[in-house]
């Protein structure tokens, strides 16, 4: 595993650049398991992603994951949306997290990373997270007339309305 000092320096540099360029946007930055994890204010998401791709060389969006924090204390919103970015070659990894409240929206990553398209639709379908500026935000797995967002913690596994 490339867990040597060079990567840490690279990641340190990224954190510094972010806090410098986007004051107030970076709420927290931590190194966990040799990965930089940054908590952002959601409004700054689009510009931070643009900076990371165009200037810091993070050319791959590996994943977008949503977590439902229902019942958990703290945080700025019910959902945490995590973007996993990677820089190839060299495999430098960065985790960006932004909280968003139920019914509120996040800026879409699609203008920066095209592969965010379906991942965002999945987030909307499964959790009801909204993305501003997404070209076509609609359900991707469930039928269009489906009610509810299945991966939310308060949605039952077997579904409602005798779904199963």
């Amino acid at each position, binding site marked *: *595993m*490339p867990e040597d000092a060079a990567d840490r320096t690279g990641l340190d540099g990224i954190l510094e650049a972010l806090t410098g360029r986007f004051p107030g946007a970076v709420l927290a930055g931590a190194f*966990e*398991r040799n*990965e930089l994890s940054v908590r952002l204010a959601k409004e700054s998401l689009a510009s931070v992603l643009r900076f990371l791709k165009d200037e810091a060389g993070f*050319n*791959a*969006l*590996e*994943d977008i*994951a*949503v*977590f*439902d924090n229902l019942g958990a204390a703290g945080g700025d919103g019910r959902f945490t949306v*995590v973007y*996993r970015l990677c820089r*190839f*070659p060299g*495999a430098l*990894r960065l*985790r960006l997290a932004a909280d968003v409240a139920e019914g509120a929206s996040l800026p879409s990553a699609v203008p920066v*990373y*095209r*592969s965010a*398209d*379906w*991942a965002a639709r999945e987030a909307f379908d*499964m959790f009801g997270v909204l993305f501003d500026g997404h070209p076509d935000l609609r*359900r*991707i*797995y*469930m*039928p269009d007339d489906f009610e509810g967002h*299945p*991966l939310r913690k308060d*949605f039952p*596994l077997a579904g409602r309305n005798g779904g199963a």
Partner: protein
Amino acid sequence: MELREYDLNMGPQHPSTHGVLRLKLAVDNEVVLGVEPVLGYLHRGMEKLWESLTYHQVVPLTDRLDYLASLSNNLGYCLTVEKLAGIEVPGRARYIRVVLAELQRLASHLAWVGFMANDIGAMSVLLYAFEAREDVLDIFEEYCGARLTLHGIRIGGAVRDLDAPLVARIRAVLGKVPDRLDDVRALLDENRIWKERTVGVGRLSGADAVAHGLTGPALRASGVPWDMRKDIPYSSYDDFDFEVPLGANGDVYDRYLVRLGEIGQSIRIVRQALDGLPDGEFAAKVPRVLKIAPGEAFHTIEAPKGVLGFTVRSNGTDKPERVKMRSPSFINLQALDAMCRGYMFSDVIGILGSLDIVLGEIDK
């Protein structure tokens, strides 16, 4: 009468869509103007289900994601859980996992070439490829009792040891596969019809491929040398000497060549792993009731379809809080539209085939 543009529906029941995929095609005469995949016909609610199962119970369900490469899914998930829980996998177990994962890559690519050729019309290649794959499945059956949904890699290591008779059988099969592969290559490589249907079709440049988030053999066929086994090695892959086949043109033919090349490299890796198999345990001791303190981990592997990733979040209990799967086929399929525009709609079958998608993984 003038011919107009029209919309054509393909699927969800179709012999060549590799599962229940629905494609909406906008065509002008026979030229494709756009392709829109409609998903969800195999959405089984896996991620939701996993939240109500223990960490161990999730493993066999991961088999059903990419069902042509179930051990790869097991490996991806187990590595993530081990990273989260801080479980150290013994050296022998890591080598056994490499053997299993590479044999699985062999089986997956053989199935792929069979399906791809069958879709284009070369049906005999399906039979040849599946016969070669049966030899590999025999090994799996002897190892863990199943042929397809294997559950052979567990949290902490593998399900059982590779004993000497099994190692000998694996070597014997590795001796046979290249001959079968030569048969397939003899039928296809310089076949005029095959080349007419695949060379120059579905081209995607390296830059476009990266922009679309493509990973796996489809990306490498466009000339981009990314392979998790080399870039972020896991499970002792950095101990082995192997090449990563690359393509030059990013067309369907190159994707075919890259996958066949990977079969050869997999055989090479398995031989090295068997030769250098260290002594020790085939698995770490992991408690049956595995409770993991709150945290989150992300890990990726190079599965036969592309980069497979898992995010696992724990909450102190023996059940995960959330498991999110990064599906390579899901991301790769987004590039289908860009690859198909301007080609004929009969090329769509070939291009879709060359992406090597599995609906179980796309729809979860």
